[in-house]
């Protein structure tokens, strides 16, 4: 079946069409062309003509013009719209016309660097002008490194290598830094949250070194569609940035379908599992030889859908899983299989959302709303490159966010995509990079590194004996090599290794788990799933940061409960109203895993539990909180109040991401019946990252809107007494939670304008 036939088939299939809440037929779009820039070097014009490029898409031309004027530029385009030419043209033109000029390319991952190198090589080979282009990353041969440092006209790298391998050794790269004309940052939208905040600081260091060598490079960034590409790029590079978003590339016709699984339990508002529904749809596509990618929201779901699909024993079909935690060569292997067509289907987390070249796929299934509009378009864009027709299906889970999206399609299709938030001044991250920067070049008195309080941080580091102040400068004064202790990918560098001991002769590391996920994913007896296989954790060596696992074959997975305690450290701002006050500030959250449940596959019923004995993990972050002035304890019992607060916190976590435009996993909540800080019943929502990435502050700005939407949503929720999509399931929040949450909300919003 081809994709047109599949479309007609689905339109006639009753048990499919009846669950569709929205079917958007997106028309194909023709290209908008303009002439090549007149002043473009004739050698470049010639090779472009040889490749049958005698015109540019208009966004390519605009980008070229802006960059030529010396403006920092960010190009915003969907996948497969010729964005690489937006930066390759100015770079190659500059090198051709001013011999000796150099450029640095930065991609978020090694895999992307490799892809780019091959594309750029083609142009350079055709030019035949001895422009030396190299990737410099962890995989670069030691013997080749010296000549790359000295003679690379274009150096392609990633932020991690820049951070650990290049900046701390900048004196070996004099030629590059002295002649650096352009810095290219692709996939800018992926530099958000903790990672983005780290990278912004790496760029501060990079610019500091450029200044030392007397260069002042222009930044050319490229981003997928997000709402704030200009703001994000500008925060990332610390300078004004011109946005180019007039996309002139063509695109093929696409059907974007919203699918809502049927309600199976009206009292509880429970729908049929979106995981199973996604798997069912994937089966139809795969059986009919349509190359399909299934995106899931978590590593666990990836593994579950993968094992379901494999259970079906679809003959001759190669179906693979793909997620973070797989080892690099395993991933390269899967990417290659997708490109050369030997793999028919892949189940992936958002790891494949970025521009890893995986060739042409016909259909994408989003198993659950990915959390953001931007992610949804990226994932949908994985199907249908060029002018080919494609189908994308969003299968809604029963989460509030999913339900909101599939029932309000106009919100999805008319709303600009999300903001990507970063907080380069997150204190923990900032201090790490000030250390690295001091190692690279001593700080001078009065020098600022992003913040006005730089000198206070420097003197703190002096107290710790890491820096030494002498004659107006702060010198690195420790034996350590600071960059090595700091990982850009996580707030803490304490990853745990998962070691498979099944075969005594082949003991190997099969994955890595970050510090904060350890208590819930690799506690003793946890079921750890990797490549669709189940492993049971036999021993967790907490101090040695290792989990030893053995293969297991059981019909359940494990799901851990976390007991969360929160302490307020500092109050940033406060709004007091008649019966409530809104505040935000800095908190420390301690989380302790207490027990885990064994959950049966398919039916998802509880089949047992066990204790978890692990130290608590601690996180400093920022939080928003709502405390209730009114003495509700007089009106309801403590238990009822607790459940009502719990219901409210669950509801807020469900609804807030719509306004925060963040991933639902980026925030978390906890409640206190009598908070030691406020002395009142309080609901806390906090950034789920050490140091915070700015979400709590944003909640503080729009909290009334969120509460109003929460009220409207709760009134409309079809469940009887509470469901996971609103206040939480009855067995967790109690029978009266929905009613009491509604009451609390109404009280809180008394006297407030609606909306």
């Amino acid at each position, binding site marked *: 079946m081809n994709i047109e036939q599949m479309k007609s088939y689905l339109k006639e299939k009753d048990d499919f069409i009846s669950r569709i809440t929205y079917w958007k037929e997106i028309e194909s779009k023709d290209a908008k062309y303009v002439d090549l820039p007149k002043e473009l070097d004739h050698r470049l014009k010639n090779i472009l003509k040889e490749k049958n490029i005698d015109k540019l898409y208009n966004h390519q031309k605009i980008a070229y013009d802006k960059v030529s004027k010396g403006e920092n530029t960010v190009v915003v385009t969907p996948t497969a719209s010729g964005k690489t030419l937006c930066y390759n043209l100015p770079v190659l033109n500059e090198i051709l016309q001013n011999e000796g000029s150099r450029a640095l390319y930065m991609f978020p991952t090694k895999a992307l660097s490799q892809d780019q190198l091959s594309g750029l090589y083609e142009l350079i080979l055709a030019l035949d002008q001895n422009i030396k282009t190299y990737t410099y990353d962890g995989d670069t041969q030691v013997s080749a490194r010296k000549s790359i440092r000295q003679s690379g006209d274009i150096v392609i790298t990633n932020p991690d290598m820049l951070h650990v391998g290049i900046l*701390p*050794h900048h004196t070996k790269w004099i030629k590059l830094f002295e002649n650096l004309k352009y810095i290219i940052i692709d996939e800018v939208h992926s530099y958000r949250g903790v990672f983005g905040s780290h990278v912004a600081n790496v760029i501060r260091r990079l610019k500091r070194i450029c200044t030392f060598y007397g260069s002042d490079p222009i930044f050319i960034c490229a981003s997928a569609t997000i709402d704030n590409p200009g703001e994000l790029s500008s925060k990332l590079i610390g300078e004004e940035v011109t946005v180019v978003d007039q996309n002139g590339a063509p695109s093929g016709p696409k059907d974007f379908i919203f699918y809502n699984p049927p309600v199976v339990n009206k009292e509880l508002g429970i729908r049929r599992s979106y995981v199973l529904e996604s798997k069912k749809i994937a089966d139809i596509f795969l059986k009919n030889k349509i190359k399909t990618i299934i995106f899931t929201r978590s590593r666990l779901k990836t593994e579950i859908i993968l094992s379901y699909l494999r259970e079906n024993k679809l003959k001759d079909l190669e179906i693979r899983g793909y997620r973070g935690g797989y080892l690099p060569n395993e991933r390269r292997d899967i990417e290659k299989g997708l490109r050369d067509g030997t793999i028919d289907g892949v189940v992936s987390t958002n790891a494949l959302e970025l521009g890893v070249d995986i060739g042409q796929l016909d259909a994408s299934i989003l198993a659950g709303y990915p959390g953001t509009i931007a992610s949804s378009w990226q994932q949908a864009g994985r199907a249908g490159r060029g002018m080919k027709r494609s189908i994308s299906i969003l299968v809604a889970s029963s989460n509030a966010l999913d339900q909101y999206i599939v029932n309000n399609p106009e919100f999805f299709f008319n709303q600009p995509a999300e903001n990507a938030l970063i907080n380069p001044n997150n204190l923990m991250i900032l201090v790490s990079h000030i250390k690295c920067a001091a190692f690279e070049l001593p700080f001078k008195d009065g020098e600022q590194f992003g913040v006005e309080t730089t000198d206070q941080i420097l003197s703190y580091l002096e107290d710790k*004996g890491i820096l*030494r102040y*002498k004659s107006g400068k702060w010198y690195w004064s420790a034996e350590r090599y600071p960059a090595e202790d700091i990982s850009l990918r996580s707030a803490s560098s304490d990853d745990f290794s998962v070691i498979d001991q099944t075969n005594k002769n082949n003991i190997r590391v099969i994955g890595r788990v970050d510090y904060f996920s350890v208590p819930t994913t690799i506690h003793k007896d946890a079921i750890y799933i990797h490549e669709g296989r189940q492993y049971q954790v036999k021993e967790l060596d907490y101090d040695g940061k290792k989990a030893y696992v053995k293969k297991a074959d059981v019909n359940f997975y494990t799901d851990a409960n976390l007991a969360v305690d929160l302490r307020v450290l500092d109050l940033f701002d406060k709004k007091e109203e008649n019966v409530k006050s809104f505040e935000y500030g*800095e908190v420390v959250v301690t989380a302790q895993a207490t027990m885990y449940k064994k959950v049966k596959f398919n039916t998802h019923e509880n089949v047992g539990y066990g204790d978890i004995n692990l130290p608590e993990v601690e996180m400093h972050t920022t939080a928003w909180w709502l405390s209730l002035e009114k003495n509700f304890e007089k009106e309801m019992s403590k238990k009822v109040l607790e459940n009502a607060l719990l219901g409210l916190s669950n509801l807020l976590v469900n609804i807030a991401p719509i306004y925060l435009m963040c991933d639902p996993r980026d925030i978390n909540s906890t409640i206190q019946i009598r908070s030691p800080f406020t002395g009142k019943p309080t609901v806390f929502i906090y950034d789920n990252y050490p140091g915070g990435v700015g979400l709590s502050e944003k909640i503080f700005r729009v909290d009334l809107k969120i509460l109003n939407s929460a009220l409207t949503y709760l009134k409309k929720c079809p469940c009887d007494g509470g469901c996971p999509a609103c206040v939480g399931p009855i067995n967790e929040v109690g029978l009266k939670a929905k009613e009491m949450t509604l009451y609390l909300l109404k009280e809180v919003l008394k006297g407030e304008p609606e909306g």
Partner: protein
Amino acid sequence: MNLRDKLKNYDKKVDRKKRVHEKENIEYIDTDKFNSKDISNQYGRYIVSINHYNYNFKHGLYQIDQLFKGLNKSVLESILNKTSNTDFVPNLKEKMLFVDTETTGLMGGTGTCAFLIGLAFFENDTFTVKQYLMRDYDEEPAMLSDIKKIFDEKEIVISFNGKSFDLPLIKTRLILNKFEQISYSLHLDLLHSARRIWSYLDSCSLSSLEENILNFQRTKDIPGYYIPNIYFEFLKSKKLELLAPIFEHNIYDILSLVTLLTHLKEVYQESVVNLCADELYRIGKIKEKNKEYKSSIKYYKKACLKYKDNGLKYKVLKSLSWQYKRINSYNKAVEIWNEMINDFDYDQFPYIELAKYFEHKEKNYKKALSYTLSAKNLLYEKSIMIERYSKKLKNINHRIKRLKDKNDI
């Protein structure tokens, strides 16, 4: 909460010890120690400690002036193991600069400083060791500017691991202080020269060479990894005597550089009579690699006479027979192969070589086949101990088949 408290909150391991307040303008009263002088130049101050050694001073095996005997371009090239395009002016010793640094870190990178730089050279019939010390970070420019002057006068740098450590570090420091770069026409990194000959030792570190080769034993030397922290301690207290062991360590390193260079020169001048079999074998190897086959034969033959263990002798014989084969002295090669068969049964090598010889030179296919079959038997017997067994077996079987064809069997 203020910023400082927040920072402390983030970092629970923060050292809560009371901070020692440092005096800013400390008087350097003890600069007389280590024969040191306070130096001022346009960039500031630093101190230098100067020590002179007479040419009859003996460190380990040799007196200093032993180095000058027969010192010429070709022996330096042997030590360097490559020919150099530079024209050495007659007075080689006056062009030499011995370099060794003590640093604030052992991993390199731009945050590592060379706080003590030892430079040594020959002048006015003495060996002069100048040790430049920056007493704080702000003294680095003044120190570097004077070091640069010395480099400008010299052409041949001699160091131990200086190619990957000391010299890149000095160059980095010059860049960071915006000085022009130093240049020199030749760099003898004696670590590489030493490894070519003494790699059979457990360690090729300078102290191991001193002990095993140069006949010098350090008393109460500080291990290198203590050095950065001693310097940081000094920065806080400004007590120069803390650095005394580092000055001494640095001087020993430089004196040992001279002795090591002298010994290498003696070795290549063939004036060392008591070389052991290991040394002779490795020098033979160097000669072999440089295609000086006759010279390599000479060393292998000497090694055969001195061997202490059979494993080494077998390796030497192997190499020796190869050289004979290379220069077409088949008689001698055959003699060795037979000797190897008689005295050892380590592997199939001599059998295969004889098989080749009889097949290609003597055209005696029967004999060739018989040696090949013996090789196969040996291979079976020793199968557990022989590396790449199956590949070797395959080759032998192939040879047997060919020889059988030639023998018409």
